[in-house]
């Protein structure tokens, strides 16, 4: 009896110990560590198959051959990266080169986690910098360059040439001001009684999409979210109220032209979005996806309209870097990291990368590349990049954006008037600015 008993008592313990030993045995192979000579760790801001193939098979081998360095790449979709990056910074295991969305930059700068790249950038030749002139400002915080953009995005109106022609409009002469866009939208809207059966113009109205769409209206009416030194909000200006009023009237009133209020169609597959299904004739979209829209609806003659402005203002549309690369402040390989970044933003490499992702490249000169010049609409998108306007890069931006999104949502639903909504949003944004400083 006794023997059995003691065996039984230790059985559970043995299982526990075995597990512990197993863990230790399964531990990571001892590495030389990221600070060992010549190893560079890079976290890419995306993980699509085409991106991985290009980077693994072409970009990295070329760079390794050139520099004799060893590159260890991890791919994480930038939408998933925050938990991973936060844990890594807390444990001191963050990589040398960090890819992320641009909205994260300011908080990383604020916490002294990433390197100021301005001195590195200054060493590039003038022409190269000018070629990236539309892209680089999106990666700056307080005037210093912290992120080098990899791909660009800009909001443009996709419209159906077929619908235009049917309505007696000239598809080759799209409107150039928001006032004209509105007029055309009313012409294109089809109604059955009071219900819209085909929307003239649809604009995203989910909280994040609404903030970006509102920015597009605001900036092209001469307004801004924050003052010049980012110390206070100015989004309750008359220009802002006017811009929001325009936005709200797309949905509200008898002449409404958009029946998708609250529907988060922007997250759906291109083929299901209103412009492709024929439920809308114009749609404010990510311009880089024009190829996918065309592919989804080949009969609808889908085209891009250059960014409009309110009369008397310059066109400005939400846009900027979709993602980019930064250098870890604690990296022991900063020069090598910078070499890698310059390799990534070399014009041909970057265009290949953008093509693999179906996005817009960062160089103005890419307009003549095979990828872009093959599609005249894509060419328009690259040309329009000069009008891109990024969101402010300030600490706590994500919080500000979410706060704004909620007030904008209320205004769009007609629950509060534009002035009220903007005053409330401005107040909340000011609170975030205060709590951060």
């Amino acid at each position, binding site marked *: *009896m006794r023997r*059995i*008993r003691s*065996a*039984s*008592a230790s*059985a*559970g313990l043995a*299982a*526990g110990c075995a*597990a512990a030993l*197993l*863990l*230790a*045995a*399964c*531990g*990571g*192979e*001892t*590495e030389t*560590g990221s600070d060992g000579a010549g190893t560079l760790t890079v976290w890419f801001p*995306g*993980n*699509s*198959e*085409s*991106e*991985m*193939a290009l980077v*693994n098979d072409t970009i990295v081998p070329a760079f390794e051959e050139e520099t004799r360095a060893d590159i*260890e790449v*991890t*791919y*994480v*979709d*930038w*939408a*998933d990266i925050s*938990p*991973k990056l*936060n*844990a890594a910074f*807390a*444990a001191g*295991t963050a*990589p040398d080169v960090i890819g992320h969305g641009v909205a994260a930059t300011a908080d990383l700068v604020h916490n002294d986690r990433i390197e100021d790249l301005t001195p590195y950038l200054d060493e590039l030749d003038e022409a190269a910098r000018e070629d990236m002139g539309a892209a680089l400002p999106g990666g700056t915080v307080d005037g210093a360059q912290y992120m080098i953009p990899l791909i660009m995005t800009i909001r443009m109106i996709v419209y159906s040439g077929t619908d235009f022609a049917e309505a007696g409009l000239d598809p080759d002469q799209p409107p150039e001001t928001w006032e004209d866009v509105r007029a055309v939208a009313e012409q294109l809207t089809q109604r059955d009684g009071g219900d819209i059966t085909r929307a003239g113009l649809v604009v995203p109205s989910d909280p994040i999409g609404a903030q970006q769409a509102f920015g597009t209206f605001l900036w092209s009416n001469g307004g801004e979210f924050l003052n010049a030194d980012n110390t206070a909000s100015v989004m309750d200006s008359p220009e802002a109220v006017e811009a929001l009023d325009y936005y709200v009237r797309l949905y509200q009133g008898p002449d409404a032209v958009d029946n998708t209020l609250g529907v988060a169609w922007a997250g759906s*597959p291109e*083929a*299901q979005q209103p412009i492709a299904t024929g439920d809308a004739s114009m749609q404010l979209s*990510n311009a*880089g*996806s024009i190829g996918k829209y065309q*592919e*989804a*609806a080949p009969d609808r003659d889908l085209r891009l309209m250059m960014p409009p402005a309110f009369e008397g203002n310059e066109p400005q549309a939400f846009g900027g870097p*979709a993602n980019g690369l930064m250098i870890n402040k604690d990296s022991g390989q900063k020069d090598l990291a910078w070499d890698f970044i310059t390799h990534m933003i070399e014009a041909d490499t970057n265009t290949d990368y953008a093509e693999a*992702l*179906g*996005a817009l490249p960062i160089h103005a000169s890419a307009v003549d590349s095979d990828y872009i010049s093959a599609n005249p609409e894509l060419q328009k998108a690259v040309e329009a990049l000069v009008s891109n306007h990024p969101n402010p890069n300030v600490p706590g931006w994500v919080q500000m954006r979410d706060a704004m999104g909620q007030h904008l949502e209320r205004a769009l639903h007609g629950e509060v008037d534009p002035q009220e909504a903007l005053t409330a949003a401005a107040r909340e944004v000011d609170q975030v600015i205060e709590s951060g400083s």
Partner: protein
Amino acid sequence: MTALMARARRRPRSSRLWPRVMVLSVVTALVLLPFVWMTSLAFTPEGAAFSEVRLIPAQPTLENFATAMRVANLDTAFINSAVVTSIAVLTNCVIPVLAGYAFAHLPFRGSKVVFYVLISTAAIPVSVTLIPLFLMAKNFPLAGGNDLLGSGGSGLLDSLGGLMLPYLVGTMNIFLSRQYFAGMDRDFAEAARIDGASEFRIFSRIYLPMARPLIALVAVFSFTGVWDDFLWPLVVSTSERSTTVQLAITTFASTGNVKYGALMAATILVSIPVLVVFLVNQRGFISGLSEGGLKG
């Protein structure tokens, strides 16, 4: 209800079976509806995905499955997930079951408090415990170049050991085991004790054999939970060598670059092992006591 009546009156099987089969069929059809579309999408050519979804694709293709298989690391991911999941299933079928049995049948002073404290950890969202757990993985002694105090190397990061770290004992399995054993009579133990059997023998020879449904449950739930987890592997894996199936399939759901057909195909491929494990184990759910084990 019909179950009880059928059993009680010992009617011939077939006459009582069909209403039951009918109801189950209807419910099954409803439950599976979303997967019909999923499967349909998996066989629809990528270009046509979502623009012409129908029950049976116009031009069915295996191209999406080929794309899914081709992804550089799906094979590594399968092996890693299989290793991590199998080990977690093994430990979970032993450690929590033993503890659950003790909480149900061998209470000791303070056992209730211990039980509730252990269980309570399941009620804290992962968002909060993720970073401390990551720090523990990184500072795990004697692993990945670490010294006895856990510094100097990368610990369990980016390794299979790191991947399985949070899964070895599921607190909910302790709870489940306790509840299961609590439903069993204590008198068997009483009788065996009088006969002089040891406590472990009572557990392993009397209660464990009657707990086959429990073991099947623990195995299935542990398998599913570990196989399907995303957040922990996302954080702890930093290279292909420690990737998992759930990380691998996000390749097709990359922001702005969703490949619908391949995503559905990959999801189907990745789900098959779990369903096989379930199918094999589901018999276990209805054996055990109902076979008369109690009467012995």
